[in-house]
């Protein structure tokens, strides 16, 4: 080897360590960059020519700049990100549901129900008292408003969840486009240099991580550096092409609009098994639907059970006329026909109409309702005809809109008693509540405007609170409309259900967070920049650089010495 060659060795060393110093410097510069993967400069000896004494080296070169990364760990991390995002968003939305119910607060649905029944209890003791009747109306209206508010808040949450699905899906679509573009850039960059396009890959890893937070994805790296991305079993990104994601709004079985993610290119269903979108959809389609259903059941049970008792009682005042709140679609169809418009169905039985004249004499008439499906069943038309024909002084008319109107002759008043058929409650005659569930529950405007119409009694006597007593008892009595549990127990189980779901979601979030954290620690352990390490590397490369420079000085001196011989 000649001295010129020896100079070449020094040159390679200077170049290599300068490059290595650059890599270390870049690592230091990116110590705070999220998602940055530490680069390592791989130094290799340059093979020399064979000589008599063996092979002498030709110096050193940077054979490559390597990213310190574990793709398997990154894949696990992406799954952990999906799971954590899913659990987090589910927890957050369940938290919002808890906030809506506020079960541990001083005023909540449970306490308002208790207040309502307490007011009924007070009325039982003072059925003749107008002020106490007014308090019943007030507490009922407060309860009704709370139920409707809860439903409204839940619906707002539902709308928000739809928006969240749309926003998250739009973001995922954007990320998919960016990743597809990066695929192209990485492939191009790496095919030219032969090395890894570290910063592009880091950027892609970051985007993949963000995408996995929205949808659980599967990433397959292809030769050339591109990655294909799958959501469920469907391909989202193929090399430089994103098939795109979108949302569509569809009506579910209950007629509620729901935003669902779809693939843009074929409108195919996106199966979100984990990730933020899955968490949102789960919160919406499982927890929201469950809470709405339970709220509806509670409201429906309250309406029906109170009304069936109320309709068979009498207030301090009687009616000179009354029109049913509910209407039938076809007055010639059986009252309990499935498609006849009544939410609550009457059954075979009977009720009494008591007609009172100005002297105080009462004439009671029994009205039979036959709904056994055998022979001719009772229709609204036949019911009206029966009442008109048999109840002296009262005319029943079926209105054009399918409601029933009862009108007493001048000087007469009427009331109702002992309805074993539930017809009055089903039609909304002499009822306390209106509506069918939490959407439309209300206090009957007739009663609300005249509390003396609250049917506290089963008789004509002012101090009779027996009907109210029966109403107070339903809060702790198993009810068929609630599957055999009482109103109180149903509310408790609803809150317990929410508590268990929320607790479960929180546990899942904590578990997924622990996995995520653990994997993050591992990733950072492998890919993170350690300033001390880089400082050591800096010193090492600096010293090596200094050594190479010194070596070149030595060679130079040797050259000078050699040249001086020539002089």
């Amino acid at each position, binding site marked *: 080897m000649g001295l010129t060659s020896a100079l070449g060795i020094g040159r390679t060393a200077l170049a290599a360590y300068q490059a290595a110093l650059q890599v270390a410097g870049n690592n230091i510069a990116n110590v705070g960059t999220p998602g940055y993967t530490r680069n390592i400069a791989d130094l290799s000896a340059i093979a020399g020519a064979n000589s008599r004494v063996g092979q002498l080296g030709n110096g050193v070169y940077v054979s490559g700049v390597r990213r310190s990364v574990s793709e398997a760990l990154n894949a696990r991390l992406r799954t952990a990100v999906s799971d954590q995002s899913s659990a987090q968003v589910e927890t957050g939305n369940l938290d919002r549901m808890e906030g809506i119910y506020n079960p541990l607060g001083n005023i909540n649905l449970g306490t308002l129900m208790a207040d309502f*029944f307490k007011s009924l209890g007070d009325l039982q003791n003072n059925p003749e008292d107008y002020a106490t009747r007014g308090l019943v109306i007030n507490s009922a209206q407060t309860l009704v408003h709370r139920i409707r508010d809860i439903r409204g808040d839940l619906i707002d949450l539902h709308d928000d969840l739809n928006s969240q699905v749309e926003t998250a899906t739009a973001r995922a679509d954007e990320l998919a486009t960016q990743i597809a573009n990066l695929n192209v850039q990485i492939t191009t960059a790496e095919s030219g240099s032969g090395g890894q396009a570290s910063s592009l890959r880091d950027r892609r890893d970051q985007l993949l991580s963000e995408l996995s937070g929205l949808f659980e994805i599967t990433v397959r790296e292809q030769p050339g550096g591109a990655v294909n991305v799958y959501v469920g079993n469907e391909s989202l990104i193929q090399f430089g092409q994103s098939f795109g994601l979108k949302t569509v709004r569809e009506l579910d079985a209950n007629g509620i609009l729901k935003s669902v993610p779809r693939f843009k290119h074929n409108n195919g269903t996106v199966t979100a098994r984990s990730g933020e979108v899955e968490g949102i959809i789960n919160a919406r389609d499982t927890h929201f639907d469950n809470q709405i259903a339970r709220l509806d059941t509670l409201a429906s049970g309250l309406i029906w059970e109170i009304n069936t008792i109320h309709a068979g009682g009498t207030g301090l005042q009687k009616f000179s006329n009354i029109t049913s709140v509910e209407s039938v679609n076809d007055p010639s169809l059986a009252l309990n026909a499935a498609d006849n418009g009544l939410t609550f169905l009457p059954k075979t039985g009977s009720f009494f109409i008591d007609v009172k004249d100005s002297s105080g004499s009462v004439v009671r008439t029994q009205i039979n309702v036959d709904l056994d499906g055998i022979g001719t069943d009772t229709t609204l038309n036949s019911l009206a005809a029966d009442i008109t024909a048999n109840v002296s002084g009262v005319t029943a008319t079926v209105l054009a809109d399918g409601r029933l109107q009862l009108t007493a002759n001048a000087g007469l008043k009427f009331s109702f008693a002992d309805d074993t058929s539930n017809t009055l409650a089903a039609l909304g005659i002499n009822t306390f509540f209106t509506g069918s569930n939490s959407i439309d529950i209300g206090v009957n405007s007739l009663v609300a405007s005249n509390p003396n119409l609250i049917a506290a009694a089963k008789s004509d006597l002012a101090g009779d609170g027996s009907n109210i007593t029966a109403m107070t008892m339903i809060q702790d009595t198993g009810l068929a409309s609630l599957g055999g549990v009482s109103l109180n127990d149903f509310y408790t189980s609803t809150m317990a259900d929410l508590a268990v779901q929320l607790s479960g979601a929180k546990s899942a979030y904590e578990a997924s967070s622990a996995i995520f954290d653990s994997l993050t620690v591992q990733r950072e352990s492998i890919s993170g920049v350690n300033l001390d390490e880089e400082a050591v590397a800096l010193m090492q490369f600096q010293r090596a650089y200094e050594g190479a420079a010194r070596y070149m000085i030595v060679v130079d001196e040797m050259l000078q010495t050699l040249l001086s011989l020539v002089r």
Partner: protein
Amino acid sequence: MAASIGNITRVSSSLKTFTSLQQLQQNAIRMFREQERISSGRKLLSISDDPVTAEKITKLMQSLEGQDQILANLQHADSNLTAADSALTEISDLLIEAARIASEQAGSFSSADERASQAEIVDGIIDALMNVGNRSFRDNYLFGGQSVTTAPLSTVFGRAGLMGDYGERRTVVDRNFTSSYNIAVGEVFQLDGDVSGGYADWNVQLNLNGRLSELNGALGSGIRLGRIAVTIGAAPAVELDLAGCGTLADVKSKFDDAFGGSGLALDINPADGATLRVVNGSGSAIQISEVGLGTTAADLGLRKSAGAGVNILGDDLNRRATLTTKLSDLAPGGVALPAGVTVTIGQVTKTVTFTGATTLQDVLNRLNGTSMGIRASINADGNGIEIENLVAGTAMVIGENGGTDAETLGIKTLDRGVQLSRLNGSIGIHPVSGNDIRITGADGVAFEVDLSNAKTVGDVIDAINTASTAAGASIAASTNNGGAGFRLVDTSGGAGNIVVEAANLSPVAAELGLLKTGTPTALEGDNVGQFYQAGIFSALYRLRDGLAGDSSVEITEAGRQINELQKHVAAVMGQVGARAGAVRSRVDQTQDAVEATQILLSELQDVDFTEAVTRFQQAQTALQASLLTTSQTMNLSLLNFLS
């Protein structure tokens, strides 16, 4: 929760930052939660913190609300019973005063003037008792029954008239358990001691449209609807579910629908109108039986079998009369009320007709609409009408108005079923040893009657008729159309008059109102069966009238009644006291339960401040440690040593 470090080989700068931030966040959250617990005083910040405890809290809160309501109910009941107890003490004191007057004046030493002056004192006692009876408590009449806004007593025909009802006011005193907390004026003054009427034992006919709940059922336990099994010939039994039926028409509809094709039909037995019948046109033997432990077939009176071509004839279902029961259903063939009845209170008589009446309620409305101080209602057994005389110390008579309507309705005041002890203002009759009355017919045939064993009006009538027949006389006894006396009819065609005399110096002929001479065909007895309201006011009016009329007999009888009524009031006071005691005991129990629930709730719900503050301090210390270690570790770097 801190991240699991695991087996890592190197620590990057970002890892230090990550773990430091994690620690800081977790410690800050922990401290914030403890701060929230301390400031809110609640152990649970979210139901998800401890779902089981949260559920317990919800249940306990519900329980507490329920107990609060029960406590309010009990206190309401207690205050009413306490007020009643106080009023009853006043009534008792007034009765003691009345009893003293009766006792003092019953002897023969008092002059008429003295008695007259005492009568005025009794008037004052009556007024005072009426005031107590009409006592108002919290704007309600304390003894008004369920008619709390109407004074339960008022003056009718110059006497105390009962306006209140006997309705119970009940309140929930335990979960799904109610208790009565009032006492009606009728009970206080024992105005409910006796009623008139109810003498007709109606055989109420079945009606397909009538409610099943009106039927006592063949077993006397009502109709318990369930499944029955019907076997026709050798075919397997077919079950029929009768649940949900409301009327006999519903039962018939289901039965005929199920078995009509096999030749069976259910109807009301036309032979008696009170039973069901299964018409067997199947050509085979049939059997109706229960399914499992059911009782439906037996309740319907149809748990029977019959041979081929033979009908199953059910048992009597004992339908009770209700307000809506039609007059046409009261008896086989129905009842007709063409003539009406007369209602007499004191000296005032009104005629009540039933023209156009179709139901029992129409009849009751006509009777109650007379404004005569009577109250008619269907008796508890549902087989008769009972009449209350609402006016104290005043005779009530319901008689015929030229027909037999009163007897048909079972409301004629003097009926066969009336106890003789009720006659003569509850003085009754006093038979002697041997025969009591001697009756001579228009044909001169005479006979004597021994009434020492007679208990009822019917016994008297039967004894007279038996003796008449035995003697070959043509005298027949009955109650008269006026409604309160006896009547003797002679069909002998003799020319003499019917004569009734006392036998063996017995007072019975006079006590039966028969000590007189009639016509050759009839002898109308005097009114001896007028119906008087029982109770305190009648006794006091009797005392007053006895004092004013200087009648030792009446004063003595009134005194006896007042003494009895004192026992009654004492018993009522005892009942009220017992109920008040029970209520107070429940109040104590409920208060204890409330306290126990509150303690339990507090244990579950309220934060333990010592524990919370300690935890807060721990969190604070941990946060400080995190801040310190973060500060230290982040400051350490080899770069500091590079020159």
